[in-house]
């Protein structure tokens, strides 16, 4: 999209100021007729975003607009479509999530000769009847109909769209027969054989039925069909009813580079010589990629079950693979990793990976930039094997692994690390050298030389004093802590991290005094205090006032706008045991935007009663200051 010039921008703003300003220009027919399409597109976009567009206003754009993006506009219906059908230069039409549209409402798109791209994703009322309208759009190149009510029967008919290069059929009940005919494979298959007088090498098992169908249709084919097929580059069939029979003919697309078969029952793939990106997550995999030609770059097999693990990836061309996701898969052996010399992103989440197979990761390690080992059995010892051999590693996740503080020593030997996730581990923050924790050196000390930008220490056994080294982490921007053993002193340490922008310190025992005296780093944008149950509403409110640039999250947080709208006279209240319970409850229940204030639940009388049931908590500010001073000593 070209950026319009400054005065053009001002004009568009002025034109979309209000309903009245729209009325002032909408009758200037001659000007509208002459409007260049980039300006008309920009004006229409602005009208949509300002919610000033209504069906009959569309009429003035019919000569000029080339792109219309109405996604998620719930009001779009047959009337809108009637006007859009008259847009003679329309090239791009996005109607994704327009829930009111059904097939008959889409009739006006029939015969739109300029239309090249159509998105009907998630218009769930749209069914097979729409296919006939779509077929009359001769130049359509990109079509997205994922999660509509189109069935296999309708998809079959799409075969005659000669220019299609992108087809998104995600979540449709497409079956093999539909896929085969969709790609005009019946036709081409026969023509191909007739022309070349030889069978293709790969074995395809047609059922008796499909063969019958094939012979019926072969009469109406032309050589041109082959050329047509060559354009298809991107096919998305996730969640469809495709099985091996349908998948077996995918190799007829010589240019196919992207294929998504996630959540299907496909277990085998034919040789796909130009495939670069394959997604077969949550499939059961028997044999795929046995051809060593496909220049694969990205391979997503998360949650997959391998029937024949020994041969998985054995013949695959792993020369170019830079992204591999086998998280949650059934893999036990990882020999294949040693062949992947250029891999940069490796996800082994919840795999049966342990210290014994970490060698394989080392083999692939030279270029590795991101490594996810969360939920595996890799321990500190395994990490020791990796240390020093992953010079480019930037992102490392060890969440939910049995690593301890020794791991931190090894992490310090990975020079490029920027993002480390150590949540849900046994890390305590003390190197196991001294007899008691008090004598031991703090383990985070050894990470001070790294340029860490993100650190996740949620659900670890860190105590306040072990966090002290964080104050000298010069590049740290995101820090997540979640533990009931953290108190005010932690906040004090964290206040001197120079570049900190996002700080999350949940479930901690922070007191009002601790927050009042917290000198937030100037760069701070977000402070997440959820679960810090000792904090009172007033303290949080005053923190917000003193730090207007910081977005504060807390169970009380949602109350603020209500308070600031003239309810300031209401008596300040400390959190009572009841409100604390409420706050905890709210943590579990997802809060809808329509019901953010717990007080709406109660009648006025109940609320008044609540005010006086507050238990005399020990003055939290006093006790807070005591703790704080003690720790500082």
């Amino acid at each position, binding site marked *: 999209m070209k950026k319009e010039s400054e005065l053009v921008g001002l*004009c568009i703003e002025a034109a979309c100021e209000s309903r009245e300003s729209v009325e002032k220009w909408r009758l200037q027919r001659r000007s509208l007729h002459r409007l260049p399409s980039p300006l008309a597109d920009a004006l229409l976009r602005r009208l949509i975003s300002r919610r000033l567009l209504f069906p009959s206003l569309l009429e003035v754009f019919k000569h000029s607009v080339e792109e219309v993006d109405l996604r998620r506009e719930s009001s779009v219906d047959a009337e809108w479509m009637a006007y859009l059908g008259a847009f003679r230069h329309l090239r791009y039409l996005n109607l994704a999530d327009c829930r009111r549209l059904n097939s008959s409402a889409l009739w006006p798109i029939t015969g739109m000769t300029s239309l090249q791209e159509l998105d009907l994703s998630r218009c769930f009322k749209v069914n097979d009847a729409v296919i006939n309208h779509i077929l009359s759009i001769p130049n359509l190149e990109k079509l997205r109909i994922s999660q509509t009510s189109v069935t296999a029967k309708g998809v079959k008919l799409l075969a005659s769209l000669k220019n299609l290069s992108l087809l998104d059929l995600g979540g449709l009940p497409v079956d093999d027969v539909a896929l085969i005919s969709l790609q005009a494979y019946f036709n081409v298959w026969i023509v191909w054989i007739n022309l070349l007088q030889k069978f293709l090498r790969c074995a395809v098992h047609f059922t008796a039925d499909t063969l019958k169908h094939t012979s019926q249709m072969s009469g109406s084919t032309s050589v041109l069909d082959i050329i047509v097929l060559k354009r298809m580059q991107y096919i998305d069939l996730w969640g469809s009813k495709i099985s091996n029979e349908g998948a077996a003919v995918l190799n007829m697309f010589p240019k196919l580079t992207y294929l998504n078969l996630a959540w299907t029952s496909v277990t085998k793939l034919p040789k796909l010589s130009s495939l670069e990106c394959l997604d077969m997550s949550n499939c059961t995999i028997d044999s795929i990629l046995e051809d060593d030609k496909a220049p694969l770059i990205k391979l997503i097999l998360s949650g997959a079950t391998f029937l024949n693990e020994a041969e998985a990836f054995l013949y695959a061309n792993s020369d170019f693979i830079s992204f591999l996701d086998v998280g949650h898969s059934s893999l036990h052996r990882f020999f294949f990793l040693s062949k992947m010399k250029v891999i940069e992103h490796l996800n082994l989440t919840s795999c049966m990976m342990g210290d014994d197979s970490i060698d394989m990761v080392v083999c692939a390690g030279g270029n590795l930039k991101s490594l996810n080992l969360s939920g595996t059995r890799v321990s500190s010892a395994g990490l020791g094997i990796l240390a020093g051999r992953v010079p480019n590693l930037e992102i490392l996740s060890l969440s939910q692994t049995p690593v301890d503080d020794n791991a931190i020593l090894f992490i310090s030997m990975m020079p490029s690390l920027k993002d480390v996730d150590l949540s849900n581990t046994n890390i305590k923050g003390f190197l196991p050298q001294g007899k008691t924790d008090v004598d031991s050196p703090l383990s985070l000390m050894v990470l001070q030389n790294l340029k860490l930008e993100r650190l996740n220490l949620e659900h670890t056994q860190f105590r306040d004093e072990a966090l002290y080294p964080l104050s000298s982490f010069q590049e740290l921007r995101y820090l997540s802590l979640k533990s009931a053993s953290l108190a005010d002193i932690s906040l004090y340490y964290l206040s001197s991290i120079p570049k900190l922008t996002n700080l999350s310190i949940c479930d901690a025992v922070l007191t009002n005094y601790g927050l009042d005296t917290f000198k937030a780093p100037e760069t701070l944008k977000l402070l997440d205090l959820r679960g810090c149950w000792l904090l009172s509403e007033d303290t949080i409110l005053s923190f917000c006032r003193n730090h207007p640039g910081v977005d504060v999250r807390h169970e009380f947080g949602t109350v603020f706008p209500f308070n600031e709208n003239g309810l300031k006279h209401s008596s300040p209240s400390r959190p009572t045991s009841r409100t604390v319970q409420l706050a905890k409850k709210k943590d579990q229940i997802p809060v809808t935007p329509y019901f953010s204030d717990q007080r709406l639940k109660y009648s006025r009388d109940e609320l008044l009663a609540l005010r006086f049931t507050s238990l005399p908590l020990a003055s939290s500010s006093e006790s807070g200051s005591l703790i704080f001073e003690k720790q500082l000593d």
Partner: protein
Amino acid sequence: MRKEDTVKLISAEGFEFVVDKEAAMVSQTIHNMLTSPGSFAERQHGEVTFPEISTTILEKICQYFYWHLQFASGKETEFPIEPELTLELMMAANYLHT
């Protein structure tokens, strides 16, 4: 004001607007016309004719040039645009790259 420092912008109806060269240069199109090498008539006479732009719109454009200069020097005021003028002004601005 010396003649070399000004430029004459002529509307479709023949109305002439004499503006500072500096102000006119806010428009990339005019800037190119006046600075491009070679002996364009526009450059020699310091005159540019816009057969497509009406007097009302050209006047507004000239106001914008001066507003833009002020804005750039830190005087942050609104530039008012009457809704009736938006379409034509938009097209002129698009043509003038301003």
